[in-house]
């Protein structure tokens, strides 16, 4: 293993694992996913210098996660019903922890591509254009996938307030707020 590659794995490995964990929702699977992607990146690493190694590896993780081979291998089945469907949550600060658990359960039940879009948009803070590039789809596809995923979240009974309406009406998407990870 080249020193530069090893340095890259040591310094960016944690961030890659966090990303993989969020898209696949399982620690062990995330570890496998990152390793599979890094093996592929390493082949290219030795041939030509990878310009943006983190973005390149993140893309490899995404492709690996969305690949039909991995889908067959993991045999993940969509949940028949979303978790805690009957629970009503009032969005008070002390209930936020419960809300987050509920949201995470809903996110894990989303179709893979929608989940990836949400993670890239709300965790990695990528623009829709960058997400489209990662996924190799049109920007409009990214927007529609995100809209569907957010609609699933908003429509979840546990995430509605006492009046039965969603937590908040949809608003235009804000610009990224965080510095790059």
């Amino acid at each position, binding site marked *: 293993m080249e020193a530069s590659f090893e340095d890259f794995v*040591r310094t960016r490995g944690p961030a890659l*694992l966090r*990303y*993989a*964990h969020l898209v696949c929702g399982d620690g062990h699977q995330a570890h496998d996913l990152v390793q599979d992607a890094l093996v592929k990146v390493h*082949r290219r690493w030795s041939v030509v210098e990878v310009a943006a190694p983190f973005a390149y590896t993140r893309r490899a993780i995404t492709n690996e996660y969305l690949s039909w081979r991995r889908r067959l291998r993991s045999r993940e089945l969509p949940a028949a019903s979303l978790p805690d469907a009957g629970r009503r949550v009032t969005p008070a600060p002390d209930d936020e922890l419960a*809300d987050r658990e509920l949201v995470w359960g809903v996110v894990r039940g989303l179709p893979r591509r929608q989940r990836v879009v949400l993670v890239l948009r709300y965790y990695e803070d990528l623009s829709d254009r960058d997400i489209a590039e990662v996924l190799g789809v049109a920007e409009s596809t990214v927007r529609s996938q995100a809209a569907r995923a957010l609609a699933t*979240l908003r429509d979840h009974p546990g995430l509605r307030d006492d009046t039965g309406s969603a*937590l908040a*009406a949809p608003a235009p998407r804000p610009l990224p707020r965080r510095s790059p990870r």
Partner: protein
Amino acid sequence: MNDVERLLRQTLDDEAGRAPSASRLVDDLRPRLETAGHPWRRPALAATGIALVAAAVAAALLVGQRPVPVSPSGPGSATTQVPRASPEVPTSTSATTPASSVTTTIYGTSGSVVTSRVVTGPLQTEPVTVTITVSSPP
């Protein structure tokens, strides 16, 4: 940002903290990289690959240079398929590969040259069909 999006951000931030530790990543990766390796960097595999390619090229050249037997006995015609760019009909042909021209020499049974001609055409990279027609003298 609406509440759902805010909640989603917080949830993802929280959940990211539960990601597995990366402390074993390099150690776990090392044996896999050694197994996967780079074929072009493994001397034994590289030597085998080169030998196979050389054998394939030599076989292709031999096939290309081999005379193609076409022997119409008397008036009539015979057809044969000539591999790639070096047809020898029936006994001698010179050509370079890839070739845009092929010199075909036909010898009589006593060894005398019956006819010799240069055929110029498009680059031949696929097998070509050559038909020899022998006519009775007028």
